[in-house]
């Protein structure tokens, strides 16, 4: 079937247009699209149901005024931006999502999903709150319930074997992502952190796991070959920074770019688009594949959990593995979970003798100057 485009798409930039055409193409060929917001979304279940997951996390302040008609000002910019894209029909992925999958991560998102549910078909996965003994059992049930929901919605059974195949494909994608990230362990690293981040982020918009693997492998091969040929895109003096905290797609320029412009280099992204979501694989041959999927996702450390011991343990491991000189936590304004947890992270870093700085920012550019000074001063301090 063919789809009509809402009039406002005409004014969009090329990049967004291409994304739009890609997703339009999928829909016209009978494909299904699921909008997602979080690394906890069990992609394998969506893949097995023949649904392509795509991240709907808003990264621009452009739609925030539209969102503020319904949402409070003092709310995380990611939530406002995402909701704004949905109400203003400005995001092709939101527009074409057959379903939107949310999780009970933070309070702001939970309540936003209720409003979003009035416009779109929203399915909410209930996350357990930490690592109690029954957390895995609870989360396995949620994943199973989600599977049944999709079976009913699309009128097709999702066989175990399809989930296993999806797990194998996603494991491969994760290993390709890890390989690219691990090139930053080199001293000096193989690339700027900015370029690595852009590649990891862009990989989320291919809608084809095989193609993603190919692209990421091509990129890593190229970087490796250049490095072997003696190319050093980053100075050996550059201070090695690890980024932790909230999703940073919307603040990349004034944070990561600023760090690298001031003579630092981001060698490791611990946060959402980075390592924490790709570190663990699904055991595709486990007796209970749904539980195996659930297990993988439950291993993600995130401030929405209490206690969040996994994040702290991962940070400790990464600062050592990546030979990090300093840790920068980037939190989005009004993100209660991360801004409160930053005290715990600061203490942990102090105990490791690791310099640490936390910044809280939003999608506007008004604090760019001050952020640049703070980041530059942090690098001078190392």
């Amino acid at each position, binding site marked *: 079937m063919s789809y009509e485009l809402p009039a406002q798409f005409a004014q969009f930039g090329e990049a967004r247009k291409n994304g739009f055409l890609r997703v339009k193409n999928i829909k016209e060929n009978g494909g299904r699209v699921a909008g997602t917001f979080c690394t906890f979304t069990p992609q394998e279940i969506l893949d097995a149901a023949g649904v392509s997951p795509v991240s709907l996390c808003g990264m621009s302040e452009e739609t925030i005024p539209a969102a503020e008609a319904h949402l409070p000002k003092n709310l995380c910019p990611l939530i406002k931006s995402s909701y704004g894209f949905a109400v203003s029909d400005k995001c092709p992925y939101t527009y074409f999502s057959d379903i939107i999958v949310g999780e009970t991560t933070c309070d702001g998102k939970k309540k936003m999903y209720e409003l979003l549910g009035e416009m779109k078909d929203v399915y909410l996965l209930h996350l357990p709150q930490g690592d109690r003994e029954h957390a895995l059992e609870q989360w396995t049930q949620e994943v199973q319930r989600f599977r049944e929901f999709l079976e009913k919605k699309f009128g097709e059974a999702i066989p175990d074997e399809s989930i296993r195949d999806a797990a194998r494909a996603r494991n491969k994608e994760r290993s390709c992502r890890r390989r690219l990230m691990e090139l930053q362990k080199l001293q000096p690293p193989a690339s700027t952190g900015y370029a690595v981040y852009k590649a990891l982020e862009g990989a989320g918009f291919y809608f084809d796991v095989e193609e993603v693997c190919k692209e990421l492998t091509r990129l890593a091969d190229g970087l490796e070959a250049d490095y072997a040929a003696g190319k050093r895109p980053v100075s050996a003096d550059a201070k090695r920074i690890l980024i932790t905290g909230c999703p940073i797609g919307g603040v990349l320029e004034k944070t990561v770019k600023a760090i690298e412009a001031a003579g630092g280099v981001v060698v490791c992204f611990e946060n959402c688009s980075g390592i924490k979501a790709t570190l663990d694989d699904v055991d595709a041959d486990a007796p209970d594949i749904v539980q195996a999927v659930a297990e993988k996702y439950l291993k993600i450390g995130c401030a929405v959990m209490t206690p969040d011991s996994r994040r702290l343990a991962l940070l400790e491991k990464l600062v050592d593995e990546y030979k990090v000189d300093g840790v920068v936590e980037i939190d989005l304004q009004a993100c209660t979970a991360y801004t409160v947890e930053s005290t715990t992270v600061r203490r942990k870093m102090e105990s490791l003798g690791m*310099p640490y700085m936390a910044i*809280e*920012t939003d999608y506007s550019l008004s*604090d760019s100057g*001050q952020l640049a*000074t*703070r980041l530059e*001063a942090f690098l*001078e*301090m190392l």
Partner: protein
Amino acid sequence: MVGIGIDIGSSCAKAAVTEDGNVLLTEQMPTGWSSKDTAEALRQKLCAAGFDPAQLPCIATGYGRVVVPYARKAVTEITCHAKGAQKLFGKDVLDILDIGGQDTKVICLRGGSVKDFLMNDKCSAGTGRFLEVMANTLGMDPSSMIALAAKGNDAGISSMCTVFAESEVISLIGKGEPKENIACAVVASIARKIASQASRLREPGVPAVLTGGLCEASYLKDALGKELGTAVESCPDARFAGAIGAALLAEKRQKA
């Protein structure tokens, strides 16, 4: 060895010349609307005094550090203030409170280098701008407002936000509250804000100093000291801490 430091702040531009670690000269002027013109005016002053930045090692700092064409290097005000304060107060372990025109910084100097620092976000609460706006509402300049505050009793301003606090001040004026009590409330409010910012980094027993344009406002030092529970020291040259630090770094860079 001679070094020149230029500190282009948001409201005041400073220059300092040091030789072998001693301050030879300091200059200041309002930054005005063009940091570039101000940097040029400082250059001329320095040349007139016999220190040509083109011939001598020169480091620029402050938010206008990138518009000083004759500086060989730009270093952030955090590093420069720490270096300058270390020299001015003769201590390697210090907590430096710098109240600038648009930023307030808390810098922890440990063993002679910056161990940690905090800076306010884009909000003007707790900065020199806050005092300027409040003083303006009271029809005074910040220094005389702080001096008047010493004679008053805290009339109570609860908002940290510059815009909301201004409305509080206006309503206190409307109620006929004596001016000195309002001034006292303004100073108490900024002292609380800065002390709470500092408390995230403070360690017991570490001396605290005040740098920036308000270094001679003795009642502000008293109010900060009261909130921090320790005496806050300062000196007239502390307004030049950034420029002096930059000059010292320029000297050191030349030697290296």
